[in-house]
């Protein structure tokens, strides 16, 4: 089972360490993590995706809630939430027509092109993790030289 956890914490040094340490010491996994300061700079929002059984995820939420530095811990409902991840791929420019071919594929995913480099091109996509995985597969034939993903960030509508 995949779960998106949205955690509001005090914006203080050392809290990211404590949250990740909790996952490690309780034998839970972090799939992805993204952190940013909130509109009120006293707080930061951490979005963590994790995989576990229903019982394990319930226990993670309780243990996170018990942490004194966490103000609010929510397990987001996937259907009611907008969740996105940003990816950057550096793609090899091999043949003369590669640039056009890459642009065409990128356009079908709604990805942005950052060109102007001699031997490579950087493509940027913001989407769901599934879409990003699919995009990655379609970029592989060109040769992915490097990549960076932000991890999921999410908000629930209701």
């Amino acid at each position, binding site marked *: 089972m995949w779960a998106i956890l949205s955690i509001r914490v*005090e914006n203080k040094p050392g809290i990211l*360490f404590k949250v990740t340490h909790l996952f490690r010491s309780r034998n839970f996994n972090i799939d992805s993590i993204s952190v940013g300061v909130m509109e009120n700079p006293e707080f930061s929002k951490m979005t963590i995706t994790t995989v576990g059984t229903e*019982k394990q995820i319930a*226990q993670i939420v*309780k*243990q996170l*809630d018990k*942490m*004194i*530095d966490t103000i609010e811990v929510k397990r987001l409902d996937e259907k009611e939430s907008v969740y996105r991840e940003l990816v950057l791929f550096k793609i090899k420019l091999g043949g003369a027509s590669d640039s056009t071919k890459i642009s065409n594929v990128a356009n079908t995913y709604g990805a942005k092109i950052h060109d102007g480099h001699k031997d490579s091109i950087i493509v940027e996509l913001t989407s769901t993790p599934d879409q990003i995985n699919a995009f990655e597969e379609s970029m592989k034939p060109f040769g992915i030289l490097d990549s960076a993903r932000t991890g999921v960030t999410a908000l629930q509508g209701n």
Partner: protein
Amino acid sequence: MVNMNGGKALMKALEKEGVKEVFGLPGGANLPMYDELYKSDIRHILVRHEQSAAHMADGFGRVSRKPGVCFATSGPGATNLLTGIATAQADSAPMVAVTGQVPVKMIGRDAFQESDIIGMSNPSVKYAFQPRKPEEIPEVVKKGFYIAETGRPGPVLLDIPKDVQQNEAEMTFPEEVRVPGYHPWTDVDMINIERAVELLLSSEKPIILAGGGTIISSAFAELQSIAEMLMIPVVTTFKGKGAFPENHPLSLGPIGMHGHAEANKIMTEVDCVLAIGTRFSDRSVGTFEEFERNLKIIHMDVDPAEIGKNQTTQVAVVGDVKASLRVMIKSLLKKALKKSEGNQWLDHVNEVKDYWRENLKLHPGEMSAAKILRKLREVLPKESIVTTEVGQHQMWASLFFDAIHPGTFFSSTGLGTMGWGFPAAIGAKVARPDVPVVDIAGDGSFNMTENSLATSVLEDIPVIVFLVNNFSLGMVAQWQRTFYEKRMIGIDLKKCPDYVKLAESYGAQGIRAQSLDELEKAIKTGLSSNVTTVIDIPIDPEEDVLPFVAPGTSLKEMILPS
């Protein structure tokens, strides 16, 4: 607002929390706070190793239910405290540990005696503060005590850089503090208490399992009322020993790895358990899956994260267990309860209890574990406080030493820290100088913190060390005999040291007891002395602790003496 240095603010803030004693050892990075301790009215109790300071604060905290305070310097001083801090965390004991740290500008530069104690202690503290400015001290002390003693208690670390102790600032001492992410109190859960009552009344073979939370919440009277109203038997976890009088007709004693035979037998037959303030440790329940088979669990606990962690519960009642039990009593008073006559379940429980109390095979020697511990119980006043070390003697204490008065039995049950019992006894005696305090010890464990004899003698804090001496690391030896085909390694302590001479060298009283008569005399001598007494009691090194539920097995698979 008043101008003062950080060290003085620390002492003032501690005094405002009612602190009268601190256990500690000075060093380079906490000299400024010691200089202010010198000028304050707080008593300093000098230890010979920081681990003992933490255990003393722990023992003080468990007995007084107020955080015990320990001081250590940075680096090795702080890391030496760590075992004691982790012990307090595992057993939910209130503690405030104050460490010195290198000056703020030196942090992160691998300075002399620098250790990242905030990082190292993270999973073993309830919370940790590192004030970076002197004016933060009054607030972090207030918050530290609030967090340590409320909800599920635990250790709080204050790591104070040397310059923060030294520098002056305008200080404000808050009367109240707010910790936004901390909600130790919940309202009493009326709905689930009602559901719990229904479930208890509709079950045929109910039992109460009282854990350490019952003692922390001092819900002794409430627990006894409910047991007597419903006429249902009471077992405890090992940490819950002392939650319910073990001479009470409804008491079956502790369950678990070295639980009472009757308690483990009955526990496997019940259909409903009211579990109060327990985290269902593997040492108490055996295998989780087997424990909950055919069993409806009502779980009362102050910590919501304990619900469902190890066992699946039918009804969860989150909140202070004393408050919850009071509501439960009111609810029960409104209902017509079954009379105790014709209570077939209780009759059966009593039959099983009587059988095992008469037929459990015991070691035949005069100085067997059962005989010496029953002798101690016979001679020791009921209100005395008992601590234990960790090992065979600890489990024999669980089996053969009845805790009768509420909250008079304490042990390192979670972390299982050898060397805990003696310094904890000293801390307990500081909290309760009016009652005798006895550390039921083994030689291996006592060895680890025996230098606390210096503290005990020089600070005039007399306790009795009841040293069950099998000249070996007995529990390890038992496991090697049982699980490793008697390949004995690393367990023989070779009668070294001589504990009578050792005690005497520290200025304590050392007595060797080789018969039950000598033992009785020695205990009486200890009780009437105003100096710490070490009673060295040689026993058979081959005696095992039985019954025994082997690790990874269920209570049903209990090994009995043959």
